[in-house]
């Protein structure tokens, strides 16, 4: 069973009331792969991530490492999550915040053990957060904060990382910085990554494959060049774009004909 995908999503469906938010979503993420989910607003990207995480009720199957689970609780040691807008508790120090990532390892009642401090120190070093450990998370800038939230996820020592719009609210430089860090960690830590991304060019540049989600279902999967086409983008995003071919992946630029 060597080729078993790290994440297997089969016929995933989520209903809010009598509205189908997601229907018949199926895809795989292979071990060590980085898959980006793109789609217009309201396509169900965040809901899909939450269903994979197990914090919203769903039907269908989500299997991580071959094991099917329904709830987030039992697999916090396997799947770590970086929310789009993390709740930042006022006054909590960076080191205490990263330590939260150890919750599933030490148990509800457990004290911080030596191994927990070692893992936290290790993560702090990897993400170069040494200078800010004693500061409070709410005093950090957007870019620093995103690295700290990433650090908390890494402290979970999970094999799979779910990132919900990790670049929102960051400027161009910090967007690249965060994604570069993710790429580096993916290699050094052997992580498997599933991310939702707003920016199509970034989605094409980072990661291996793209899943196009629209109206609650998967419309295309594959390498960026085959998914992010002028037609697909016009059809699902209602946007007129030009695509510039670049060695490292297509560059998508808005080119509305009504613009001039």
């Amino acid at each position: 069973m060597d080729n078993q995908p790290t994440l297997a999503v089969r016929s995933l469906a989520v209903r809010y009331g009598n509205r189908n938010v997601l229907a018949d979503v199926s895809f795989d993420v292979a071990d060590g792969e980085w898959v980006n989910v793109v789609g217009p607003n309201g396509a169900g990207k965040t809901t899909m991530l939450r269903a994979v995480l197990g914090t919203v009720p769903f039907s269908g199957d989500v299997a991580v490492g071959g094991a099917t689970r329904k709830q987030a609780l039992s697999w916090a040691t396997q799947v770590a999550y970086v929310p789009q807008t993390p709740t930042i508790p006022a006054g909590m120090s960076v080191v205490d915040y990263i330590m939260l990532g150890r919750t599933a390892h030490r148990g509800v009642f457990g004290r911080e053990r030596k191994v927990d401090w070692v893992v936290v120190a290790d993560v702090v070093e990897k993400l170069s957060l040494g200078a800010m450990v004693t500061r409070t998370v709410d005093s950090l800038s957007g870019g620093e904060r995103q690295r700290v939230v990433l650090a908390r996820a890494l402290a979970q020592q999970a094999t799979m990382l779910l990132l919900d719009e990790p670049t929102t609210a960051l400027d161009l430089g910090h967007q690249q910085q965060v994604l570069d860090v993710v790429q580096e960690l993916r290699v050094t830590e052997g992580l498997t990554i599933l991310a939702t991304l707003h920016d199509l060019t970034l989605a094409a540049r980072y990661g291996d494959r793209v899943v196009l989600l629209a109206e609650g279902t998967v419309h295309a999967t594959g390498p960026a060049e085959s998914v992010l086409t002028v037609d697909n983008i016009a059809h699902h995003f209602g946007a007129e774009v030009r695509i510039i071919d670049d060695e490292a992946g297509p560059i998508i630029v808005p080119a509305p004909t009504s613009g001039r």
Partner: protein
Amino acid sequence: MREPSGSRWAVVVAIGVAVIAALSGVAFGPVSLPIDGVVGELLNMIPGVSVDSGLSGTSQAIVREVRLPRVVLGLLVGGTLSLGGAAYQGVFRNPLADPYLLGVAAGAGLGATIAITGNIGDGAGFFDPVPLAAFVGAVGAVILAYGAGAAGGRSVASLILAGVAVASFLTAMQTYVLQANSDAFREVYAWILGRVATSGWSEPLLLLPYFVLTGAVLMRYRRALDVLAVGDEEAEALGLDPRRVRLVVVTVASLGAAAAVSVSGLIGFVGIIVPHTVRLLFGVSYRLVVPLSAILGGAFMVLADLAARTVVEPAELPIGVVTAFLGAPFFILVLRTSRREVW
């Protein structure tokens, strides 16, 4: 990397403050006693210890049977209410939360009012009916609010709203009962304003198990309270069941608060002010907020009681008046001078 070392010292300092408050509480009053004599007499209470305290027989009795039980009750009431406040603020992620939020005060008030106006008679057996009715009312109110709030998906907001509705309903009932029995007005009002007066050791002994239960469970759950600070969804993603933690914490904090108000009346403000003072001085982690709230809450209540019974000697001020009168300016001072952002 390891745990910051300041925490142990903070606990030691807090215990020191509580000991000084307790000694002052025992030594000062209508009859002031020498501190060394008080210490000697307290040591004498430890089995096997016998020192000459130099106190007269009357003074010894004042220490053992009057002041010490009262000080111990103050420590327990203040500690329990502060623990309850800290716990509620944690699970509801709301700086103004305390057990009164889910109707502990309103329920206890209604229970006590019914018992007083119904004139159920004094000392029905071992139990005084007023605290018993207050306890039943307080616990009933929380069960009602939690049940109603849980039906709405058990989100934090629905619980708070259910609590507000239940509290308003019970307060309206209490007003109605009181209106129909206006002769009991003074007595009910006096109960509401609160006191830590004792008749010997029965009240502190009654409250002790609740304090121990609340303290022990919250000490176990203090790291879970830190996790809850990031919200239910993230807590769940980190491997913590927020609903279960909330149920356990609300249960023990409410039981403790119900027991405290049933013996001491509706002393307000302590559950809000003490945990926030601790946060402003020592940081927001519940690793420290829980134990320090228990210790300093007790110390604060003992000092408030000392003021309540000495400021207008030989009369006594209601302690609920003193906690707010002393507590509010102190809290504003801490709020203005602290450079921490705690909420």
